[in-house]
Structure formats: structure tokens, C-alpha cells
């Protein structure tokens, strides 16, 4: 049902609270919900990181590979790491996203219950992680929050890999 303007005559003092008033209110809400849902499904994604990463001698872990300041409230939707090859590589590739209201390192906390990771001992070429579990209490990101990308565990030797972090406006 298309949006319909509700005439003020329908809600003037002394008017009976008629069914048609509620019918129009419900119709307009349905229309708004339908259009909002369409909009959300198409244009609400926030791509925070979607990159190929190449590190040079980073060590066994790396804290603060990148920082990103949030422009608006949204919900973290997906986080993945991906690899190209497993040949000659051992160890675990693990990504962490830490969230904070400011840049004080003491205030950062992980957004995951289970961090996206790939264990090379059981991985295949071109794998993407499928183990991510967000911490429900940390999944909502507010305007002005900082997100920090860490790698708590890096394999050896380190080759190129991909990372992805996507959100969705609320």
C-alpha cells in the first residue's frame, strides 16, 4: 500500500476514533517498513576493511596493523581471513578486531567471542575462515568508536592473505 497523507480532519477534537484512522496509520507503517527493508538490504553495508595484506617480517603477532574511526552507528556483520596457498606454511593465521571509544590502548577490547582464523595444518589453498563468532555485547559500533585490526597469531613464513570486515547500518 502506498503512503497516504492522513487528513487532520480525521483527528480533530470531537471526532470519533474511527477505524479508518488506524487503517491508514497501519498502511503507512507497512509502506515505510517495506521501503526501509529494501533500502537496508541494498545500501546499508559498511565496508571497513576488504584488503589483500602483505607483511614483511612482522613476527609471530602484530598489534595495530590499521585503525578506523566509525562515521555512524552500525552493527558488525562479517569478519573473515582468507589465504592463497598453504604450501610450506605452518602455524595459525588469526585476526582480531579491537574496539575502543578512544585511542588509549587500555580501552580496546575484542569484538569477538571466536576470532576468525585459519590453521594451516588443516587448511587448503584459497580457504576463507568460517569460525567467526561476534561478542553480542561488542557487536554494536557507535559513531566515533575506533576499530583496531590486530593479528594475534601469524604463520611462518608469512605470505599474502586477505581480510574482510563488514558492518551494516542499524
Amino acid at each position, binding site marked *: 500500500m502506498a503512503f497516504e497523507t492522513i487528513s487532520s480532519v480525521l*483527528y*480533530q*477534537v*470531537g*471526532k*470519533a*476514533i*474511527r*477505524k*479508518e484512522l*488506524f487503517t491508514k496509520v497501519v498502511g503507512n507503517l507497512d509502506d515505510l*517498513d517495506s521501503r526501509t*527493508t529494501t533500502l*537496508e*538490504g541494498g545500501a546499508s553495508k559498511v565496508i571497513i576493511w576488504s584488503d589483500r595484506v602483505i607483511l614483511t617480517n612482522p613476527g*609471530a*603477532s602484530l598489534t595495530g596493523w590499521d585503525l578506523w574511526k566509525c562515521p555512524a552507528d552500525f*552493527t*558488525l*556483520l*562479517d569478519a573473515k581471513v582468507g589465504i592463497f596457498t598453504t604450501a610450506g606454511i605452518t*602455524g*595459525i593465521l588469526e585476526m582480531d578486531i579491537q574496539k575502543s571509544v578512544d585511542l588509549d590502548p587500555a580501552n580496546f577490547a575484542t569484538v569477538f*567471542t*571466536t576470532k576468525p582464523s585459519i590453521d594451516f595444518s588443516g587448511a587448503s589453498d584459497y580457504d576463507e575462515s*568460517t569460525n*567467526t*563468532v*561476534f561478542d*553480542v555485547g561488542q*557487536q554494536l559500533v557507535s559513531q566515533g568508536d575506533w576499530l583496531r585490526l590486530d593479528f594475534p*597469531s601469524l604463520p611462518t613464513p608469512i605470505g599474502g592473505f586477505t581480510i574482510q570486515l*563488514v558492518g*551494516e547500518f542499524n
Partner: protein
Amino acid sequence: MAISQTFETFAQKVASNKSVLAHLEPAQRLVLWELDAGAVYKRSVDHYVINVFKETTALTQGSSSSLNAGEFYFDYSDKTLYVRLGDDSNPEESFMVGVYRLFFSNQGHVLSWDLTDDGNEVYYEALLSETSNFKQELDNAELLGISLESDGSIRFDNSNGYWDSIFDRLIWDSRRIAIYSWFPDTPFSESKLIFEGEFEDKTFTQNSVTFSIKDFIYRLRQPVGLDLFSESDGTLSEDIKGVKYKRRIYGEVTGAQTQSLDQTLAGFQLSGTISGSKDAFTVSGSGTSFLSECSPGDEIIVDVPIFGEFTYKIESIETDTSLTLSEEIERGFSAITTINNPEIPVRTKNRPQHISGHKLREPTTTITAVIQLNRFRMDPTDFFANDIIVVGSETVRIKRISDDLIILFQNLDSLPSIGTTVKKNPINAVYFDQRELIIDRDYTIQNSASECKITLDDLAEFNITKAIKIAGSFTFTNGSRNVTATGAAFEANLKPRDWIRSDDPFHATWYEVLQVNSDGDLDVRIAYAGANFGGTAKRKNINYVGDESIVTVDCIGKEDSAGKWVKTASDVVLDLVQGDAALTNIDTDSFDTSKIEADYIVSLKLPLSPTGEPPIIRDVISLMNQSVFGSLVARTDFQVSFNVLTPDRPDDLEELKDEDLIGARQNFSVSTKSDVRRKIIGRYNHFDADRYTGKKGNDSTDFENSFVDYLIGTKNEKTVDIYLLNETDAETITERYALIHSLTQNVVTVKAKLNLTLRNLNEKIFIGLTRMFDRFGGSSENKKIGIISKISRGATETTVTFSDLSNQFNRVGAIADDSALDFTSAPESEKIFNGYIVDDDTELPDEAATSDDQWNTNLIG
């Protein structure tokens, strides 16, 4: 006979010739039978037979003496009863019970046996001399409640000795009785049932026989049928936490305490056998696993033949087959089993945790359209935002539901397909030690027809415990169980069954602590498998689930026999009256309607406390009634009906007029019932244990009524327990209590003709009596809408009590038809039905009003 007349026509007449009829249905064992033909047996009987049972199994009524297996036939013409049992056996070999119907009236009539117009005609003995009035009443001042069971008595003349032969020989206890009112000039079928119930006690004199009788509502005084825990459920003791009964869960609950089915109690048996010599400190094992099953500080209980039980504390553990005690062995033992009573709970005990003595609802559906990785369509019945669901094999949480569109908090790993199964876990969350456990990692769910339980993973407590860095420098040696450190404080920071790991990035494995030897030396239970490492380390101090620990769950409740969620108050009451009270005379339409009118999700655990006893059925129904403004009543046709109080006014509302009353028009009285409160506190979402404090509690909402503050000024407050889950629903109910408690109720009692006999408790009615005072919120208008709270039915007159529930029905506006007139044009009779837009300041529906009379009327509430 003026057959075209109806009961209603005659009921209006004061001097109508009324008859009272009674059906009494005693039982008798039928022992002697003779073969009639084939497998059909027969016998003569003295009374009209309406049912025959083989033990407790009813036979079906046949249409002639030529019977099929499992049938009976009563030939009234010669009072012969024929039966053919299901297995064609001789009924003399079985316990056969016949149920009779005896017919009585106060005047003597020939009427049909079943009061239809074409049934077999029988003589209704003119022995019925008196019946009491049968009163129906709601047992709560707010008209939330259950109709009190109606009881009374019926007396028969015995001056001719009619009862001498049957008073003691027939079985009357708990047998059915029905009493009817009938006008002899109307068809038999116009008789009206005024009481249906059971015999309770009886009195015999040479001149009369009197029965005291009660209706079926009394069955609600039985306790709810909950099962006791038993040895077959596992290893548990009532003495630990006082839990005796398996709980029943309705709707959805949070913070429900579980019951361990594998308690440690006095200890658990160790693997293998042990031996030890008198005066020695060392115990050796065969097939034992001391390293994983024991810890220093544990007590082993050794039952030495002849000498009895000895208890020793473990000092240290050397290997899987050798440990050292803190004291000398008093009596030697060899190759015997032993019990270990651990000082610290072990992670292999208390794993199964019982939740309910029935299956929990587990909604399942399939995807009908796929939109994105976090969007798809499906039937959303019984699914809500924040639910944990399993899509195919992936566990995710619902962020929002819009119509049939499901939006997830997190992308699925791969696009699902149309037809992919979506299942909602019956358990939404599990908490222990202030932390939430994660499904599949920390626990699994077993949801069978007879119970629901979770099984904790051995590492559940480990998984939810945060790792903490330990000060010091540590040495981990490949192949060794020993860890050394400098600058560390092991004795203060670690104890047996805690965990430690090195910060070696290539070996992130955790090791369970066996024993702390000193501040710089400890042993773990298995050898370190990483490369030799020197550096920093982390610890986890674990709080394990023990016998007395509190684990709580947030979960959905019971499903009915058809697999539907027992979700609303209506569902709960129906489940109780059908399942526990075994009532069969149910007005299911009323339950369906109430389910729509009060579709709130209830939140109820039975017993209310984990350690409680099974509550009485009617007490539980009362909790539901007070939660949704419900009431359970027996209607005039003795069907049990569940109603929810709503402010709507039926289009066909009947009017009580002066001519309906007996005697003069002034023959009514109005009393008031004052219970005005300025503040209502609604306590909802009751939980056994808060996840942070472990204490029993609830959420609460309140409503302060400025109407009362300004106009009445009372400081009285009222707290109501609302057994609902959601805050918005609890707020709605709390505000309704505030409305009802904002003004005094008017209670109108009238003595009326028999036409009011046909009315039911909780029915709404116009009170249109000429001498009634003007109503609150009605300008010069005295019509009120009342709700029936009490009916006392006699054979010739009826007394009815109405309440206007603080003028609720004209103070709360209802949505009007599109043809409704504006306030200034509408007749008074329409104004009491419809809601009107009011001025923001004056709250009057007429901007040109010159009177305050219409204030506080027809507000949307």
C-alpha cells in the same frame, strides 16, 4: 401442550408454573449374566442404564440386542441389558459396572430420558422436595479469578420408602447429578441446566434423603502433576539444594536454575584398584589414573574388609599409579576400589543439568526465499529478535524480523537455499559464574519427550574463564610435567585444577595444574608438548560447577500434545484444566479468543521456586489470571470458559431493564468497593537466580497515577506479580491495574426473574435501570456497563451482582465504526461505546463544551 413456547418466554413471567427436574446417575457392579445368543449376554436391571464399563473401559451403545464386539444395548421396554465384550468373553469373568440414570421432579411428569423431544419417555418420580440455590461467584475483587466451585444440596421425599433399597446398595460417591428448570408448557428440550456436578455426602431419614453436591470446578484444588527426581535420573540428592520435583516451564523464562544429574555427593569411584601397606604413606594403583582424577587435598575413602572405612587426605601425586597420603595408613589394603571426595570440584562431574520434566518447544521451519547472507524469508511463527537459531548447520542470532523477513546479526558463511531448515534452540542462553556459555562449544542440548537437559563440556568452565598474565619468568621443558619460575607467586595465584600456558606463539596449549609445590615450582597433569620455552606465561583460575553451584538457563517452555507452544495465559490454563484437572467440558472457543486478546508470552516455572512443592492447580490459574486480567468460569451449560477482561463492548450488549427485576423497580442495591491506589508496581520476568548476584528476583515496572494524586490523594500503593516475559506487556498490565484502582467500583445487586439464569459470569451487560445515578464521565446519562461477578440460581429466581469496574467501560474509548458520528452529534447510547479525540489541554471531546461532565471519558487506554 403449547409446544412452541420457549424457556426465555416463560422465564420473563413471574407466576409461571416451573418444574425442577433431576438426573441422578449412580453406579452398580453387575455380576450375574446369562448367555443370550453368540457372544451376547444379558440380564435384567431395575433402573435405566446409560453406560456400561468393563473395569474402566466404556462399552459403546448399540442400537439393538444384535451387538458388535464392545457394545451394550438397554431395552427399556422390558428393562433388559445386553452386552458383548470386546473379546467375546463372559462378562461374569470381568468387573462389569453399570451406570444408571434415575429420574425425579417436584411435580411428577412423563418426559424423555435425555430431555430431548423424541427420546424414550420415562416417569420422573415426584419425590424431589427441595433444592438449594446454586451460587456462582468469582473469587477475586478485581474480577480476575476463578469461579468458586458451586455447591448445594438436593432433598427427596422418602416417606414411601423409595430410597430404602437403593440408598446403600448403589454407589453414589463422585457420581454425576444434573438439575434442570423446566416449564411444563414448553418442549422437553427447553429445560435449562441449572447445576451439574457430583455427589459428595448423603443423609438418610425415614422421611427424606438429602445429598450434598458440588460441581466439577473442585478438581482445580488438586496439585499440579509434577514428577519427583529419582535414582533413575542420575546421581543426585535432595539434601544438596533441596530440589525434589522436575519443573514445568510455561512460555519463556530467564534465569531458570538447573539441577545437576551427576553430583559428586560423597565422592566418585576412581578407575582401577589401589593397594597400601599399614603405616606407609604411599598408595599404589593398578589401572588407575591418579594424574587426571586426583588432586592434593582430595580425600580418598578406603573400605577395608572387616575394619571398615578409612578416610585419607592426598598430599601429592607422583604418577598415574602412585600417590602419597598426608598421614600413615592405619590398616593395609590390597587391590580394592576406592572413592575420591575431591576438595575442588572436578570438571567431569555435574555435566548433565536437568531443566524440565517435559520437552521444550523447539520451533522449526524452512527458508522460503533467500535475499542475502544475513537476510531470508520464512514463516516467523514463534521466532523473535535476539533468538539464537540454527540455519542449516550454522548457529546465528536474529537481529530483527519484519513480516516474514529475517535479518541476522551476522552473515552466514554461505548463502542458504530455499528449503533450508531453520530451527530455534529451546535454550537461548546458559550462564555460570556470571558468564554466558556458548552452545556446541560449552554445552549441548538434549530435548526429548520426557525431559530437557543440557550437558556441559568438560572444558566449559575453562572456555569461559579469562586468561590472566602471570608475573615472573617461566621455564617449560619438553616432555616434562614440571614448570619452574622465578619471580612468580604460584602459591598465591594457582591451585590444583587451574590452568597455565606458556606464551610461546607456536605452542598455545593450556595445561591443567596438578599441584603447586612452591612459589617457583608446580606440576601439570600431562607433559609439556611444546619446544623448551623460557619466558612469560598466562593462567586461568577456574571456578568449576560443583554440586551446589547455580547454573541458569534462559529457555522456551512446554509444548502441548499437538506440538504447539504453550505460550499465552490461555494456553497455560487450558493445559492445566485439561492435563492436570482432567476436565473435558471445555469451551475451546473461549480459550482461542482469549489467546488472541492476551497474546503476551507468559513466564512461569512450576514450582515457582526450584525447591518448592507442586502448587495447587487453581493457584497457578490465579497467577495467570492476575497476569492478563483473565478469569476461568463455569458457564450456565457447565462448559469451562476462559475469558480476558477487555474494554470492548459487544454490539449486541443486552440491557437490564426495570421489568427484568422481581418486585418494584427499586428492587436493586448499589454498594461501592474502594481499593484506590496511587501507584502500581508490576513485577514480571521472575527468575530463580540473577546471573551476576545469584539471587532470586524479577524485573519491575511501575505506574504512578496523577489522577489519584490530584483527586483522591491516597498514598496507597499496590504490588502485582505479573507472570509475563516482556517489559512492554508488563507495562500494559500495570497500567490497567492503575486504571481499575483509580476509582471506587460500583457493585449493583439485583433480584431478577429466571431470564438472568441464562447469563454467565463475566458477561457484560447494560444496566439500564431508571433510578440508577448518573455515571462518571457521562453528562446526564445513567446507563452503565457492568460485568457479572456473581450469580445465585434458584429454581424460581436469580440474584445477580454486577460491577462497573470503576466505570472502566465508559472511561476507556474504543475504536469506532467508520460511520460513527462526531461527539457533538452522537446520541448518548453511542457515546458509551465509542472513543473520541479529546483536546490536549482540557481532555474534553467537545471544544465548545460548557460542562466538565465529559472529562475523563473515552480515553484510549
